[in-house]
């Protein structure tokens, strides 16, 4: 009998403990976690209350837009920080999800978790080619990568790419930097066997640099600045390879399904991004502050980073989309094919470009 009483108590206690645990997790799991600003009532944020592009305001759309963003200093972060899209699509639900690499964004498109998202030109071309052939279109160029991605080498002995023959060069494989590096090697009459290429994520580069395991790296900020400060000198940059026909971009992609269903939202989105690109030159201080609050660096750092990119407005984009972009995509695809990143180069990359919204905004 006493054994029975004891075990019954045990079971009751177990049940009570489990119940307590369940309620504890249930309390907060039901509602979404409020942000720190909402929690302390911080209203010093930069969010606008009125849509700054009155003609683009769209209050008919009541659906959800799932957006992928990346920590790259361009106008997309201004749109996010100032809440421009939320103001111009007042009845929509905007979901911003952060990604670290274009490859992850492509993966999320593949799982149908996104409507629009930011990726570099290399991942974008990979998504639009076999075997993936994702139903997506390129809708916008956030920036043309210039000195923001550069080849930095140890000491002052390396004047040109040729001097790096046989040296260890780190680069994240599949990235826009990888593409630029191979283009630079090609332009110098070398190929990828002339140097020792090492696949390394940017955040692991500074440790390898200090230990002398790499002699050079093609990389972006904040690692680029760190390596420069640690005795590195710039050999060449993506601005130089862009001049030889191998330009790299950060672009926005959207699913065919979303574009077909909501062409009006695409126009609003494009007009808002175009307005934010204009802000970078018209109100550099506030733009840099918006970006620095998201990136967690200083306003001055962001202003310096601006110089490493070109931010084309809708008018220029219209020319690029109808002009050189299909050819650049084809060249990028051919490069990716030699890397084994894709199976076949598509015949025509003009078909993966969505220009209706850009053309409409460019006319205004």
């Amino acid at each position, binding site marked *: 009998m006493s054994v029975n009483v004891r075990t019954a108590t*045990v079971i009751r206690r177990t049940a009570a403990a489990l119940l307590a645990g369940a309620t504890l997790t249930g309390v907060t799991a039901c509602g979404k976690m409020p942000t720190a600003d909402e929690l302390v009532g911080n209203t010093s944020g930069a969010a606008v209350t009125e849509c700054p592009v009155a003609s683009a305001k769209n209050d008919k759309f009541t659906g959800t837009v799932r957006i992928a963003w990346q920590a790259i200093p361009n106008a997309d972060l201004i749109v996010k920080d100032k809440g421009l899209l939320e103001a111009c699509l007042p009845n929509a639900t905007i979901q911003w999800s952060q990604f670290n690499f274009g490859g992850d964004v492509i993966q999320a498109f593949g799982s149908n978790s996104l409507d629009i998202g930011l990726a570099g030109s290399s991942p974008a071309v990979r998504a639009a080619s076999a075997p993936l052939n994702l139903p997506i279109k390129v809708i916008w160029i956030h920036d043309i990568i210039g000195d923001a991605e550069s080849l930095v080498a140890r000491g002052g002995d390396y004047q040109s790419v040729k001097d790096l023959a046989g040296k260890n060069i780190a680069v994240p494989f599949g990235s826009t930097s990888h593409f630029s590096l191979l283009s630079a090697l090609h332009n110098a009459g070398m190929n990828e066997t002339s140097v020792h290429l090492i696949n390394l994520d940017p955040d692991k580069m500074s440790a390898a640099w200090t230990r002398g395991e790499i002699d050079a790296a093609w990389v972006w900020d904040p690692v680029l600045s760190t390596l420069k400060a640690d005795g590195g000198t710039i050999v060449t940059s993506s601005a130089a390879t862009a001049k030889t026909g191998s330009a790299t971009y950060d672009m926005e992609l959207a699913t065919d399904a979303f574009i077909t269903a909501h062409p009006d939202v695409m126009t609003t989105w494009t007009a808002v991004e175009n307005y934010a690109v204009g802000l970078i030159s018209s109100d550099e201080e506030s733009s840099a502050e918006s970006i620095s609050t998201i990136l967690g660096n200083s306003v001055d750092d962001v202003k310096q980073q601006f110089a490493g990119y070109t931010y084309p407005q809708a008018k220029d984009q219209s020319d690029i989309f109808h002009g050189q972009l299909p050819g650049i995509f084809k060249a990028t695809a051919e490069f990716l094919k030699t890397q084994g990143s894709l199976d076949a180069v598509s015949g025509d990359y003009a078909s993966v470009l969505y220009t209706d919204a850009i053309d409409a905004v460019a006319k205004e």
Partner: protein
Amino acid sequence: MSDATTPTASDGPTTTDTAPAAPTTPVAAGTAIAGTAIVEGAATAKRKPMPAWMQSKKIQPIISLILLIAVWWAATSANLINSLYLPSPQAVWHAFIEANSCRPASAGSSRIVCGEQQYFLWQHLVVSLERIGIGMLLGIIVGVLVGFLLAEIGWLNRIILPYINFIRALPPLGYIGLLIVWFGIGDTTKIWLLFLAAFPPIVLATVDGINGVNRDRVNSALSLGASRPKAFLFVVFPSALPSIMNGIRLAVGFAWTTVVAAELNNGIPGIGALAYLSGTELNTPLTIACIFVIGIAALLLDWLILGITHLVTPWVGKE
């Protein structure tokens, strides 16, 4: 080490064995003698007891912590190590405070920024704890049920158990991509991953626990007239409970080690995601602050589970 040749040290059989070999292999002999000397040193220390305050079981871990921080502080303030690789304790503390408070975006700016990545550090932790809690809860429910079935039905055990062991051996980073393609980038994927990390150890512990139940106890309950379900509920289950609780404790550990992998994509808010993102931004003070928070939270959770274990299995160690 200089007293390695004292008469007491040469009493040990190891020393007598290696001593003749000393001229040919001086290094090996040296280490062997030194090893004996340490043991002897410990023995002599017993004769001269430590001061009472140092013997207190509560003080000892605190002393070790203070020593660790002092060495860390000394090494960083003497600029022995690049602050990018090991920031000073003050920098880590500053990052921890900043991540839990509001501050101006830049000097003189009217813009106030709160927390890191839009959330306070404690909010990141709470969200991760929630994910671990839900994953664990599902892991416990499914794991214990599956464990009972596998322990009671032999043929099912032979069919299913290899799969459980298979899942157990998989590295989470290897299949997170697959889960994202199946379940998207939302919380479903993260909870699935934590569940898959937590449930195999619970199944195995449950099977072990039930297989280890003393058959005499079950048979005596049955012969005294207990029905099979009753014998199961009041004899088998309580006897297996210590093993199950042990499995849960191990499973929480696996869930913690999986949390960064689970939060790599779209993990904000989440402490694993914050640790990872701050690393990619070379913000090492914040990364270390996150690691400390994760470690301390894991210790507290482990302590809580131990408490629950003592509560529900008070007889363990007293039989």
